[in-house]
């Protein structure tokens, strides 16, 4: 049962990754190209002094084609699989929500916890933005923010379930949501801010890049949430022990 759900999630994730690739290709790549042109100009000026030029290990065409495709589809499959595991834990445990609604809810909460909240603190950066010297610290902070936000979201959902027994589902979810936001706000204040945007880098281009980056993730998560719901809604997801499947008592 769980293996089947996991497989469904990963297949849905691959489909979502394909859609995200199409979006990224059309709406994201122009800003990556701009940033790389900016970077090349800056490093060309530096090369005039040192006389050295870095060779490309992977061509730009491959990066923007097969590389982008592989990255997004593989990432989509992984997120789809993790999404399916979250669904296996959640389905049937959130009041009377149908599988399709549970799927949509996980997609929204996952998108907020894994994309929106970490990116509000540490937004996506195009090439040429961000110093190579700080990559270790930036990566650590970004993943810290992401893991913390996700763990906090899971705790908030469990908290909301408990509150629902006493003050109702709507009020419980509202209170738990406010607690989530409050703790996130403390986290935002506690973690260091990173400001490494080159002065000459176009603010409009940076904005375009960041919006398109959120867009890529939005397409991915929306597609996973809706497609997974669509392929799960009509299917009974009862846990049936393999050998007892035929006996009526297994269906309860």
């Amino acid at each position: 049962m769980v293996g089947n759900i996991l497989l469904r999630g990963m297949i849905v994730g691959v489909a979502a990754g394909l859609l995200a690739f199409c979006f990224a290709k059309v709406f994201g790549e122009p800003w990556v190209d701009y940033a790389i042109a900016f970077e090349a100009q800056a490093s060309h000026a530096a090369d005039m002094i040192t006389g050295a030029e870095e060779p490309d290990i992977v061509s730009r065409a491959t990066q923007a084609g097969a590389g982008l495709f592989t990255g997004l589809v593989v990432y989509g499959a992984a997120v789809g699989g993790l999404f399916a595991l979250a669904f296996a834990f959640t389905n049937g445990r959130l009041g009377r929500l149908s599988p399709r609604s549970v799927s949509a809810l996980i997609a929204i909460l996952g998108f907020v916890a894994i994309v929106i909240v970490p990116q509000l603190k540490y937004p996506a950066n195009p090439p040429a933005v961000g110093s190579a010297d700080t990559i270790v610290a930036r990566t650590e902070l970004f993943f810290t923010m992401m893991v913390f936000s996700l763990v906090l979201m899971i705790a908030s959902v469990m908290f909301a379930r408990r509150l629902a027994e006493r003050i109702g589902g709507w009020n419980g979810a509202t209170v738990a949501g406010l607690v989530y936001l409050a703790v996130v706000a403390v986290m935002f204040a506690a973690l260091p801010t990173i400001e490494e945007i080159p002065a000459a880098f176009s603010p409009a281009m940076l904005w375009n890049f960041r919006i398109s980056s959120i867009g890529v993730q939005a397409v991915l998560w929306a597609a996973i949430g809706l497609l997974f719901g669509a392929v799960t809604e009509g299917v009974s997801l009862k846990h049936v022990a393999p050998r007892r499947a035929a006996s009526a008592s297994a269906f309860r």
Partner: protein
Amino acid sequence: MTSIVHATTAQSSARAEPIPVSAILPWAVFGGLMLLLTVYFVGAEEGATSLMGGSYVHEFVHDGRHLLGFPCH
């Protein structure tokens, strides 16, 4: 798979029965680990940390990493 049963009975449409945690856990531990490793390779390998060395993985998934919002370089 026999464990997927199409909803034909009346009671199955009422409310999905939760899958016992004990049935999910083995999948969650192994599958979760594999999937997180996959996220790591797309999102962070040969950036801040490197398991394989070199920079081919980094350069290959470069655009995807930037557009997914991971710190790249």
